[in-house]
């Protein structure tokens, strides 16, 4: 797969391959210049290419992560955060998290809400991709329409959906009543946790499914026609072609999308902040909201950092499982 050998045997001397008189003339092996170029292309270049991104990652993600880890063992208010003097208190913040029934509930809620959103996003996204992969008139219209929720800023989407879910004048309740569900006349979505989470989940999935759909569609279109034709000739039905040919070929892509969706849906902040601010009575607080609340309204940056570390551990565990699966697929 790696093209180092091809490079060696095939590369010619000199950078201006076009138009020079020596074009097409084979070059004898050896020569220091050639060695230098090969060294540059295969040893130095990759690191030069990686350098800017690595600097960003280490400087702006690595440092804060380490710093947050450090903070989670300290008593850190606003003043001590700025000055840098803070007391080491060991695992106290973590003990607090385990002992606090509300925070324990926050963890459960985060996982259940996050996974529900991932499943809904993937199912809807793949279904829409399969739909867009079918030939029908006006397909391009639908292709553009499903891009729009993705293009829409989350804060704007949450603001608009809040209006759609309005108890008295909201379009959602009106539609549900038209469908014969009279109970939704004047139904207040945001006064109890479950309906509030449902409404938030709708907004999250609405914003997330286009990315999955477009990515899967690109994957579907990359499945070679010859393979599908062969399967068809062998008598595979459309369902069999999907299940036995297309989905296995797309498995690495689907796994990556599940990873990305999981990471996004466990971190949902904006929609909840705009729609409920974690209320009523902190019942729609997920980890991101709870972390933010502890850090920026209670100014307990230590506890906030500890909550974030806990979330980091959960996401790491989930992601490691996925990565194992991807590695098996790609032989990475």
């Amino acid at each position, binding site marked *: *797969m*790696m*093209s180092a050998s*091809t*490079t060696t045997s095939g*590369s010619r001397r000199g950078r201006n*391959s076009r138009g020079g008189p020596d*074009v097409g003339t084979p070059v004898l092996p050896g020569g220091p210049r050639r060695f230098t170029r090969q060294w540059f*292309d295969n040893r130095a*270049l*990759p690191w030069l290419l*990686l350098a800017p*991104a*690595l600097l*960003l*990652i280490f*400087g*702006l*993600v690595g440092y804060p992560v380490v710093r*947050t880890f450090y*903070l989670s063992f300290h008593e850190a208010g606003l003043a001590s*955060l700025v000055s840098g003097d803070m007391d080491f208190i060991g695992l106290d913040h973590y003990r607090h998290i385990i002992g606090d029934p509300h925070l324990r509930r926050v963890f459960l809620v985060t996982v259940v809400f996050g996974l529900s959103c991932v499943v809904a996003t993937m199912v809807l996204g793949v279904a*829409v991709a399969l*739909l867009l992969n079918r030939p*029908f008139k006006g397909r391009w*219209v*639908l292709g*553009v329409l499903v*891009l*729009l929720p*993705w*293009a*829409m*800023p*989350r*804060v*704007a989407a949450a*603001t*608009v959906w809040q*209006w*759609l879910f309005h108890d008295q*004048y909201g*379009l959602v309740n*009106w539609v549900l009543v038209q469908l014969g569900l009279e109970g939704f006349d004047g139904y207040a979505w945001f006064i109890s946790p479950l309906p509030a989470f449902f409404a938030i989940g709708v907004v999250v999935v609405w914003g997330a499914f*286009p*990315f999955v759909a477009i990515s899967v569609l690109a994957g579907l*279109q990359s499945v070679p026609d010859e393979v599908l034709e062969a399967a068809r000739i062998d008598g595979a039905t459309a369902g069999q072609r999907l299940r036995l040919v297309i989905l296995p070929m797309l498995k690495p892509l689907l796994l*990556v999308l599940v*990873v990305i969706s999981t*990471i996004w849906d466990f971190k949902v*902040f*904006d929609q909840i902040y705009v729609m409920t601010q974690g209320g009523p009575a902190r019942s729609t607080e997920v980890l991101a909201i709870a972390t*933010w609340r502890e*850090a*920026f309204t209670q100014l307990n940056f230590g506890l*906030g*950092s500890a909550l974030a570390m806990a979330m*980091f551990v959960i996401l*790491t565990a989930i*992601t490691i499982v996925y990565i194992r699966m991807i590695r098996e697929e790609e032989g990475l």
Partner: protein
Amino acid sequence: MPARGLRRRPRQIAASVATYAAAVVVGAFAIVPLYWMVVTSLKPQAEVRTAEPVFWPSEVTFARYADVVERGFFTYLTNSLIVAGTVTVLGVAFAAFAGYALARFDLSVKRYLLLLVLATQMFPVVVLLIPLFTVMRNLGLLDSYIGLIVTYLSFSTPLAVWILRGFFQGIPAELEDAALVDGCTRFMALTRIVLPLAGPGLAACAIFVFIGAWNEFLFALTFISQDSMRTLPVALQAFTGRSGIDFGAVMAFSTLFTLPAVVFFLFVHKRLSTGMVSGAVKG
């Protein structure tokens, strides 16, 4: 197209009816919130809060847009465009280089780098916020474009690397090998062969990065305290708070906030759907 028997016709008709039905449902789900946003913003005040929804306003009023513009919209728009635009250009360039290196070179540290890239995405941004806030404060970069740009690069670049690496892997290495045989350097092969072929991937990635920066709410909320430096998401949140139940004005602001993102999206959408790679390999 293979010949199809006549007996298949009824099934095909049923399938195509189901396809159109599904298309209508999906299309409505996608578009209705946006439609409702725009329509609400254009309605006369009396038709906004009604028991029976008014789907088509009796007359169109742009008064709320004038109001929103008067309340500083263009300032916020400029801030957002500067920040998101810079982040997109720099982020995609960095990510393209790194993604290519990870896709094509047999680096011994590759598996750790990929883990690192993913790990950066797992960390809740809420928490990068605390240390970065301290750093920006000490460097005097609060209330500045640079503070936001640098921060946004930190969380958009890693995932962009991940996405572009996938795209580069999908481009057959034979194409570059051919270029290398013809005397290209690696870097020329990257800039002249791979990047143009990765056009749809780069476009997708640019969209992704731009939308991420355009959307970003939390850092902007924390880093920016001057009203004149606010980006659109924070400005919308503040606007909603001030406007109370004036849904028309809030929807007008939301519409103006959404519009540039949608236009940008549709503009590059063409590039997304062009299958340049399949053309190059099959053709």
